[in-house]
């Protein structure tokens, strides 16, 4: 379980520094971690705020980035019996990592699920604050190249996901599409459009394959 926190800490700090560089206040940076609690979408929202994207496109991109949680919920809902209120609480704090830890263990209880979720929530928010305060010290973040942390972090996230030829094709096509769309579509919307078309392409390319469960090893590694 410990390595998961090691993954959360630099990601939380990097998110917070990026958010501060994008012009969000310390309070706003921390509030996003409390309200959204989803690393990848917070990171991309910070980048979108920096480029002056419209609020609605940020929300759409967040939806697309987080709709994968549907898969975890579907899987967990079959494994653990939850009351209605337990479902609401565990849904709020559900992350890739919590799902990965629960599925990799033999425990199947609400208490264990919530324990995993809350311990990640606390470390995510503590290190968001640490990063936000560190971000205040940096005078000219753009000159230092702080914006480069963003693509580097996502490179670390995407590489382990590329396991088949189709994965690489979808990633490559999406990269090209995003480059083109970012020139012709309003900021942020290009990510959403690319995500929809790229995922449709992937689903179509794998039409002859049987459906698979989310890969447990990925879930444990991924920090998103």
């Amino acid at each position: 379980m410990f390595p998961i926190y090691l993954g959360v800490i630099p990601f939380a700090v990097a998110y917070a520094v990026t958010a501060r560089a994008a012009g969000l206040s310390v309070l706003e940076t921390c509030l996003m971690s409390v309200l959204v609690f989803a690393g990848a979408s917070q990171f991309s929202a910070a980048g979108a705020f920096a480029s002056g994207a419209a609020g609605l496109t940020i929300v759409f991109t967040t939806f697309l980035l987080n709709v994968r949680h549907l898969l975890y919920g579907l899987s967990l809902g079959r494994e653990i019996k939850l009351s209605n209120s337990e479902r609401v609480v565990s849904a709020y704090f559900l992350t890739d990592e919590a799902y990965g830890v629960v599925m990799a263990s033999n425990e199947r209880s609400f208490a264990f699920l919530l324990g995993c979720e809350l311990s990640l929530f606390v470390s995510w928010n503590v290190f968001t604050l640490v990063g936000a305060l560190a971000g205040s010290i940096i005078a000219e973040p753009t000159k230092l190249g702080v914006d480069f942390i963003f693509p580097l972090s996502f490179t670390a996230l995407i590489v382990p996901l590329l396991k088949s030829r189709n994965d690489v094709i979808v990633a490559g096509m999406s990269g090209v599409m995003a480059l083109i769309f970012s020139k012709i579509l309003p900021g942020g919307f290009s990510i959403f459009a690319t995500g929809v078309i790229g995922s449709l392409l992937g689903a179509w390319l794998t039409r002859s394959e049987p459906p698979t469960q989310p890969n447990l090893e990925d879930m444990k590694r991924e920090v998103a």
Partner: protein
Amino acid sequence: MSLRLEILLVFLGMCAVTFGSRYAGLMLRAPLPPFWLRFLRFVPISVFAALIIPAIPGDQGEGVMRVLTSLLAAFVAWRTRVLWLTVLVGFGTFWILKFFGIHA
């Protein structure tokens, strides 16, 4: 310490769609059709690629350097699968190049 209303509204929207995705999975009884299960599996791959590629060059005229160090970082990610090491090697190399006055 400031909190702008328009920013708060964006956060609340993000909160709603994120919670909705998390809750819908725990709620749903009927399984999703196979096509949409496969669609969801490709979402992170596609979106992450869309976030990475346009963000690499930056706007400080250091595009070549940043593309090359990104490739190095991708190699580190592939061999180690460790996030902090990937960022450290990529950012560190970028900084060392900057330190030696390379600007490309």
